[in-house]
């Protein structure tokens, strides 16, 4: 089956991203396809490479980056939600006149249309939120 994943909560604060990660990993292991993982609301904060969680804890962002790299998963951060919350890639930082960017490897910033497209293209869109 072809899955789309929507994550609406930030890392550590809420379990949504952990559950989404475990679901995504399990789906891949069972031979399903992940069409896209879309990050919205505070979920965009899963994509910052500047977080430094304690060493004895899981690193949620690195975990996503590695999973995306291993399985060629499309991970999209909503641009409107990202702009509000200070998530920037190089192009956005330049466009907005900011002095830095913070997006982690494997994530890309794009529009909400990517979420709707996932809803249309996938057999199931699974929402992880509060």
């Amino acid at each position: 089956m072809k899955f789309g994943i929507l994550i609406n909560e930030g890392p550590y604060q809420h379990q949504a991203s952990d559950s989404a990660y475990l679901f995504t990993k399990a789906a891949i292991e069972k031979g399903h396809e992940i069409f896209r993982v879309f990050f919205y609301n505070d979920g965009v904060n899963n994509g910052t490479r500047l977080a430094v969680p304690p060493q004895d804890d899981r690193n949620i962002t690195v975990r996503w980056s590695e999973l995306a790299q291993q399985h060629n998963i499309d991970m999209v951060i909503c641009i409107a939600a990202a702009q509000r919350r200070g998530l920037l890639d190089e192009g956005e930082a330049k466009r907005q006149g900011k002095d830095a960017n913070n997006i982690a490897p494997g994530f890309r910033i794009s529009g909400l249309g990517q979420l709707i497209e996932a809803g249309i293209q996938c057999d199931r869109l699974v929402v992880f939120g509060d």
Partner: protein
Amino acid sequence: MAEPWEEEGPGTVKKFMYVNRKAPYGTIYALESLEVVLIAAAFEQDVSLAFLDDGVYELKKGQDTAGIGMKNFSPTYRALEGYDIEKLYVEAESLAERGLTEADLLVPVEVMSREALAKMMDEQDVILSF
């Protein structure tokens, strides 16, 4: 025999339901849900909105946000008609539990029982819950 999700071509129209469960202010869910709905309108899908729990407050007439320093975005619900989004369902029990009636709402809606709304949800292809 092909599964239902295997029969969909590129011109597919799916039933998308946006479920609004949170009060309009206090958290960003209501506003960012509305932003998804406005983008989704361009995709020519079969869109409906459901309002339940504190989400029914999103449609309350006479919202005045001056005291909390936030933008009153409730007029946007009136604009949905212009985007051909006309299916707004409100859960009767959620209204009653909060002492509200249909006359308290700022747009025409269809009030339905929890049971009827559950059936409606069952008929959807994609449910986005905020």
